[in-house]
């Protein structure tokens, strides 16, 4: 279960499994307080499919809710279909098999640019970001976008762009589905 009182911008904040909402969100009278609350203690990171994101109910395009839990930060896994490079931002169209969603990475420092430059069309990536809505569309403001590289523990193998434990990357979505 991942909880953070304050996001520090570090990719390490998203490491590890168990992207499950905090149990504090399960209070009997939590729904209205959660919808209006901006308490950072209640925020969590949810692994969702693009289909789930598109179907999230929202009243004002800034508050998304899934079964009474506020959805702010999300993580998705998918294939980069398009990449657009502008002066201070990169926009990736990521397809996870259930749909496609725009993911925008704003860059200010060299390290941000290097990260975005390394993401190529056709590669599988994991995206962490803040879910946004505008005029009926949903998109993600990206905190972190990285190539999907997972070491297979039970064999002697080095990191490689071509080794991807794709199935495991989608299991957290199912875990969230079980929870809700």
């Amino acid at each position, binding site marked *: 279960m991942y909880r953070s009182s304050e996001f520090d911008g570090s990719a390490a904040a998203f490491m590890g499994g168990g992207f499950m909402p905090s149990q504090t969100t399960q209070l009997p009278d939590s729904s209205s307080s959660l919808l209006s609350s901006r308490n950072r203690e209640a925020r969590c990171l949810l692994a969702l499919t*693009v289909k789930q994101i*598109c179907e999230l109910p929202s009243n004002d395009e800034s508050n998304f809710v899934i079964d009474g839990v506020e959805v702010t930060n999300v993580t998705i896994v998918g294939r980069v279909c398009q990449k657009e490079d502008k002066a201070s931002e990169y926009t990736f169209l990521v*397809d996870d098999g259930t749909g496609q969603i725009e993911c925008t990475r704003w860059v200010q420092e060299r390290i941000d640019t290097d990260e975005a430059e390394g993401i190529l069309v*056709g590669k599988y990536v994991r995206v962490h970001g803040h879910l946004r809505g505008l005029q009926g569309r949903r998109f993600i403001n990206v905190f972190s976008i990285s190539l999907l590289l997972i070491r297979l523990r039970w064999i002697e193998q080095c990191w490689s762009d071509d080794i*991807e434990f794709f199935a495991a990357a989608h*299991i957290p*979505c199912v875990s969230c589905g*079980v929870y809700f």
Partner: protein
Amino acid sequence: MDTSKPAIFVNGGLLPMHVQKRVRIVIQVLGSDRGAVIGKSTDDHQLTVKGTPPSVPLTNFVEVIGIADSEKSIQAEIWTNFGDTFDTYSYNQLCQLANGEYQLLFL
């Protein structure tokens, strides 16, 4: 944002359920025959993948996204090398979940 063209997670046993639909499948490459790639699905079904593979050599495991044109063949649109080893058990579990009780998360 577009959910109009999903690619359904399938293995060999689930492919017949999605003929004429867009699917994604991981196969182990066995060889080629008359311009098509012959592969084995993660649940040990032999399948035929038609279309033009990428210019780079295929690895042992490949993900194919395309249209299922029969119960045992796919017309491929996208090929992605997945390396020489792959966790077929987990992938099969994902396919079962994505086509079963958690189908609403994917389709």
